[in-house]
Structure formats: structure tokens, C-alpha cells
């Protein structure tokens, strides 16, 4: 078996077991009372922790300035998501903002 298949099967099985972990465990044992209340925050906490570094970091370094196009377009997308609650609008407006800002930055850079 080639190396890549060893990697794929191992990561595939480990990921499956990770996804199964608590579905299996919470069947067998009664969780403490705090657990159901804590679980309510899983979606917001994990999903935010995924997207914020995509906006605020460039090559692993903090980049909080208007020159960071991903940050500015991301903030616009957050506002659209908050107002519309629509994934289509959020992704659409976010991507168009990203392209417009890229163009604008290019235009500014070439006029200096």
C-alpha cells in the first residue's frame, strides 16, 4: 500500500472515531448537568474560532489594518450576515467586496 493511502485511511478512521466519540459515550453515561448548557455554545464558539484567524492573520501574523483586504471584506460580510441571516448574500457580498477592494488597492498602488 502506498504511503498516501496509509495516511488517508489513518486520518479517515481517526476522524470518524472523533466524530463518533461523544455520540457513543453519551449513550453509555449520564453527563453532568452543566454539559447540555455548555453545548449550546459549541456552534458559535467553534465557527467563530475558525473564521476569525482567516481574517485577522496573514502568514500567522496579526494584521489588523485597513490594508488587510480579507479583514475589511470579512467585516462587511459579518454585517451582511447579521442583517440578512442569508448565506447567499453573505458569501456573495463578501466575495464581491473582496474583489472590489483588491482592485481598489491595485489602482491606488499604481497611481502612487
Amino acid at each position: 500500500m502506498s504511503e498516501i493511502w496509509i495516511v488517508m485511511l489513518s486520518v479517515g478512521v481517526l476522524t470518524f472515531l472523533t466524530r463518533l466519540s461523544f455520540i457513543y459515550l453519551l449513550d453509555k453515561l449520564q453527563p453532568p448537568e452543566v454539559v447540555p448548557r455548555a453545548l449550546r455554545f459549541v456552534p458559535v464558539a467553534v465557527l467563530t474560532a475558525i473564521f476569525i484567524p482567516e481574517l485577522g492573520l496573514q502568514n500567522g501574523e496579526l494584521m489588523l489594518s485597513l490594508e488587510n483586504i480579507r479583514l475589511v471584506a470579512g467585516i462587511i460580510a459579518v454585517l451582511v450576515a447579521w442583517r440578512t441571516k442569508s448565506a447567499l448574500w453573505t458569501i456573495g457580498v463578501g466575495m464581491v467586496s473582496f474583489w472590489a477592494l483588491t482592485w481598489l488597492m491595485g489602482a491606488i498602488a499604481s497611481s502612487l
Partner: protein
Amino acid sequence: MDKAADKISPMQEFLLGIKGELPILLGVTPFGMIYGVLATSAGLAVWDAQAMSSVVFAGSSQFMLVQLVNLGAPVIMMIITGFIINLRHALYSASVAPYVRHLSPLWKFILTYLLTDEAYAVAIMHYQDKSGSKNKHWFLLGAGLTLWSCWQLSTAAGIFLGAQVPPNWGLDFTLALTFIALAVPAINDKASFLSSLSAGLAALLTRGLPFKLNLIAAALVGITVGLWSERR
């Protein structure tokens, strides 16, 4: 419990799940295509690149794995990295566990396989709304299969189109936008707002941790802050 909601049939739930997942595909499709492009340019054979999308079926770890292939990293290093990046799925597992408790082992097996970020995020909102339908696992199945199909097809498109996918369009940014579209509508009170805010800040502050462990650290901070703010 709402009598009308009780009557939502499995097929209706399944279709609602597909419908709920569809808008998210706008962000997932470019990401799958970029994975296909990166995988083949890292030297993976066409079928290996395609197979990873169903064997591993977790976008961010697939990205990391093809980068490590490119760097010629040792096998054990790739396995550990892929495993740790996907650890956040344990939180999803805990989150859906109470809702799937009554299901057969076969159902649990299938839904476990389909428990990706994007299917989980859409389905958990549906689980958490107050309607009392007993068939919500069909919603998760519909959402999960929709995402799975999209992931396979967009991988294939990326492999096929290869270098024709323009790298300077910043299409990888759709990943961040997808998660914004999933996270922001889930904020519905002060506790969830503070949970989100603190998780975001913590993810930045712990950015130095290896294997993207900042994500797990940030999630735990967010959950703790949410609980604390609810208490007060």
C-alpha cells in the same frame, strides 16, 4: 409540543435538510475545487486525490495533508496533524449526541460519517429550534448527503480543471465567508454574542499553538465565557 411539527414526515425533513444546505454550497464549491487543484499539483494521482475527499472527508485537514505531501513530510507527522486538526469534531459529536441517542447503530454510523463542519452547523440550528419533529435526523441526513455530493463533485472539478482555476481570484476566501454565514446567524442573545467574541479573540491570541490547536483552545474559552455570562 406542536402537533403540526409532529407531522413533518421523514421525506419533508430530508428535503428541508437539502434546502438548508444549498446556500452553503456557494462557499464550499470553490473550496473543494481549490483542494482538487492543490492535491494534483502536490503530485497525488487523480484517483488518490478524489478518494481522499470521501475517505477523510474533512476540508481543512485535506488541505493540510496535501501541503505536507508537497513538503515530503513523514507519514506519522501527517497522520498526527490530520487527526489533531479534526479534533474539533468531538465537540460537534457531543453537541448532536443528545439528539441522535434514540437512533439505531446504523443511523449513528451514517450520521457520524456525515458530521462535517458545514452539515453540523446547518443541522444543529434545526435541532435547536423549538419545533418538536421526531424526524430531524432525516434533516441531518439530507444536509450531510448534499454537502458530501458537492464536496465530491467540486473535488473532481478542481482535479479536472487544474491550473485553469485562477489562483489570484482569492477563491479560498469563500471558506472564511462560509463560516461567517454559519456563525453570525447563530448569535441570538448576549451570552452567545460574548461566547463568539471571546472565542474569536482567543483564536487570535493563541495563534502560536501548533496543529491549529488555537481553534480548540478558543472554542473552550468561548464555551466557558458563554456559560459564565448566562449565569450572571
